[in-house]
């Protein structure tokens, strides 16, 4: 009977589970220490804006199209919606950016004209143009995954920077410096 008993051996394999657990531990430790950035960054930064033409979102501002971004001027493209609460929170900062001389174009996602008008009346209107994107076409086209998001577009229509979430007070300087950077073409 003992003739077929296998003698112990192959010690390395015995330690394999512990080694694998060690790898797992390091991995999740890393994941806990630097919590994953839940933002989904656009992969379009550095690329040209896709072709689009959007109708006007409100009567007092024109709609917008890709060509508006190729006039040699750095512009901000702000993806927003009247039904989005954080969008109201960033309104003062957008105003500040507009006062600093940066033209801002709005893309209203899945929104109705009367709602946009009410939103602007309440929180101010820093926008040069407002396009109505009823099927998130532009949003999908520029790799935006939520509202609000703000993109810095240089004078050739290239996306240079993406800001995800509402622009808070501390973000204003960052965006202004990105605007400055975008003034020198790639």
């Amino acid at each position, binding site marked *: *009977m003992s*003739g*077929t008993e*296998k003698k112990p051996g*192959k010690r390395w*394999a015995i330690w394999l589970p512990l080694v694998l657990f060690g790898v797992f531990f390091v991995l999740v430790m890393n994941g806990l220490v630097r919590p994953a950035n839940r933002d*989904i*960054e*656009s*992969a*379009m930064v550095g690329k040209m804006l896709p072709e689009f033409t959007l109708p006007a979102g409100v009567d007092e501002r024109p709609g917008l199209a890709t060509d508006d971004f190729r006039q040699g001027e750095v512009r901000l493209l702000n993806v927003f*919606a009247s*039904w*989005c*609460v954080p969008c109201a929170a960033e309104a003062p900062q957008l105003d500040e950016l507009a006062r600093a001389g940066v033209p801002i174009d709005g893309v209203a*996602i*899945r*929104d*109705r004209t009367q*709602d946009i008008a009410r939103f602007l009346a309440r929180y101010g209107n820093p926008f040069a143009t407002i396009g109505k994107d*009823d*099927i*998130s*076409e532009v*949003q*999908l*086209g*520029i*790799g935006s*995954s*939520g509202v609000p998001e703000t993109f810095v577009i240089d004078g050739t229509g290239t996306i240079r920077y993406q800001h995800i979430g509402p622009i808070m007070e501390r973000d204003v300087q960052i965006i202004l410096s990105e605007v400055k950077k975008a003034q020198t073409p790639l």
Partner: protein
Amino acid sequence: MTRALALLALIAAMLAVPVAAQDQLPPAPYAYRQLEDPAQEQKAQDLMETLRCLKCQSQSIADSDASMAGDMRNQVRLRIKAGEEPEAIRAWLVERYGEYVSYKPELTTLTWPLFAAPLVLLLLALLLLRKRFIRRLPEGEE
């Protein structure tokens, strides 16, 4: 102190109740409508089941009521209808959102271990079991 913190957390949780952050617009044309051609619809459906809803926690755009998922479905169906191949649409989305948007990992320098894993596991099993088997049992054993 702990209790005060806990109460704060509770109040925060109460405030965090979503304030009707829902748009009022009707869904995009093809968000909840199938393509007329069943073969095309099947293609679209198969693709949508493997695309990630970006607003949801972990759902495909085929299983989500989020309006953005509806807009993505609309986009996929329209493109399929226009004769685009499913993999081209996937590539179009990956170009915009990175690999994250696709539940189907591509073979890259970062993902090759996923695809090597079955082979490694197979080799490991062979290596470990090599000596477990015997060709012939000695006569008269047991």
